[in-house]
């Protein structure tokens, strides 16, 4: 009797129509699609740089100094007669490489440490003191000191940006772990007898994954900006390598006579950061399992 009875009571239909998959929602979100497309475009540009803008981007050609943008030099030339278009195209390699490597390393470490820290108090206390210390101190200054130590190179930039960006990432992951840890589903899982390893894997990791992904895109954008800023002030990759930030270091002297030297690399930089930020924003909205975000 009871089964039939409860059937009758629960007779209402299962509420919502099947929720659209992440991919479906992603495709329907113009911001997400646009920012993703932009990033893919930059990535392709980086990968196929030698095909898109053949030639050595560092090659100086003093005869054509300060040529304005035109048919031969799309983005004009700089004070040394280097092709700005080539610089922008090839510069994306450094930028994206640094961004990607820094993001992967710092988010990877932050995830591991954040999970540990969220669950083991001893680890947490030590780690957080250290993180507080790092955060109590402007990253760019730390990176400057590191650059002085390690010398100007891509690897230096990657190392120092990773050191700088791991703290905020770790905080985000740890914060999420602490929130998730208190979630009732964890207590429920423990009450059910789900082993700790499985709780990590099936409950905590998926729950913190979304914020980690979102954070990753913001870390990526911070790394891109950081590389540019370090190179700009002369403690990033050295002047003999090419990056957008680097290109601006010298270019700032010529903004009034050849604004294109400043505008194009800066624009490329800004578009990359913009795309990453927009991607992060839309991921944040899309990855919310409740889909109930107002904004």
């Amino acid at each position, binding site marked *: 009797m*009871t*089964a039939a*009875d*409860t*059937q*009758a*009571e*629960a007779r*209402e239909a*299962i*509420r*919502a129509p*099947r*929720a659209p998959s992440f991919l479906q929602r992603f495709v329907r979100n113009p911001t997400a699609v646009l920012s993703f497309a932009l990033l893919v475009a930059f990535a392709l540009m980086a990968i196929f740089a030698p095909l898109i803008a053949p030639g050595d981007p560092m090659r100086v050609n003093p005869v054509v100094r300060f040529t304005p943008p035109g048919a031969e030099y799309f983005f004009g030339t700089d004070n040394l007669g280097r092709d700005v278009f080539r610089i922008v195209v090839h510069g994306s390699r450094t930028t994206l490489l640094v961004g990607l490597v820094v993001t992967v390393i710092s988010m990877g470490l932050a995830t591991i440490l954040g999970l540990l820290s969220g669950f083991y108090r001893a680890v947490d206390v030590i780690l957080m003191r250290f993180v507080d210390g790092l955060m109590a101190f402007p990253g760019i200054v730390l990176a400057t000191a590191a650059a002085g130590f390690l010398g100007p190179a891509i690897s230096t930039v990657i190392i120092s940006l990773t050191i700088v960006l791991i703290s905020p990432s770790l905080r985000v992951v740890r914060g999420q772990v602490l929130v998730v840890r208190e*979630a*009732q*589903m964890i*207590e*429920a*899982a*423990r*009450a*059910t*007898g*789900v*082993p700790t390893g*499985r709780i990590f894997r*099936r*409950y905590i990791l*998926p*729950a913190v994954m979304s914020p980690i992904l979102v954070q990753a895109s913001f870390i990526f954008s911070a790394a891109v900006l950081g590389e540019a800023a370090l190179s700009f002030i002369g403690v990033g990759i050295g002047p003999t390598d090419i990056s957008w930030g680097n290109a601006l270091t010298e270019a700032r002297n010529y903004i009034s006579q050849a604004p294109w030297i400043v505008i194009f690399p800066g624009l490329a930089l800004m578009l990359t950061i913009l795309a990453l930020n927009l991607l992060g924003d839309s991921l944040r909205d899309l990855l919310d*399992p*409740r*889909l109930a975000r107002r904004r």
Partner: protein
Amino acid sequence: MSAPALLETKGLTKSFGNVKAVRDVDLSIPRGSTFGLVGESGSGKSTVARLVLRLIEPTSGEIRFGETDLRALKGDKLRRQRRKMQMIFQDPFGSLNLRMTVGETLTEPQSVHGLGRNDAERRARGEALLAEVGLPAAAMDRFPHEFSGGQRQRIAIARALATEPELIVADEPVSALDVSVQAQILNLMRDMQAEHGTTMLFISHDLRVVQYMCDQIAVMYLGEIMERGPRHRIYEMPQHPYTQALLSSVPGSPKEDGKRAKLKGEIPSAHSVPSGCAFRTRCPHAFDRCKVEVPVMHQLGEGQEAACHLLDR
């Protein structure tokens, strides 16, 4: 009580820092019965629920589950013990993993406890559980957010039943639900209990719900049990002033002298539990002795007990 107790606690105490959330709680829940724990906010009833399930570590006291000394269990042994004792939470939304399908939610307890020979078998059992709680098999591949509150609580009940536990602890299982849905879930839980013979510790602030559900009832106030006994004794002849006040405060109960309120003042904070009888600050009958002496339980027959100095007179 002739039936042997499935769950027994003695002197169960839990302090958080210097706050004693639960003090000297003795419980004895007979096998197959529903035991109600009722109290207002801050009474420690939810803490008791977590203590008896060993989700939090008691400060002192004993917990026996059948023949097992629960406090002696650790690690994997404790985890395996959990097959026999499950919990239903107040908020079905929070207690379900939003990233797991209903199917995964229902097969997980089976697989972690090695029930069922293979995935297909566990899935079949999951579908049977769903049918039992009144949900179609199609629900297996859905996610929790696709269900209404009542349906989610059904899923939570199905999950609790998945390991065929001997004890289910239900912590305010219907207080988040609308009245009409609440009745569905109460009926469902009563049916389940009748069908499976499960022992149940039922925690609620709602006296009417507890009355409907429980055979034995304990009334808690500020971490202590004030009165306990069989349902009819508690509801028909409450002996403790707090129980009396509680019952007369329920809306719809007859008003005497045109007033509902039996009690003056507010519930003290758990940080500053009054000396002597915890209830004395609000008790209409409090006298000097209540201030200095903690009252002991008085046996009042048929298993009814109350801790009040008035009963000495």
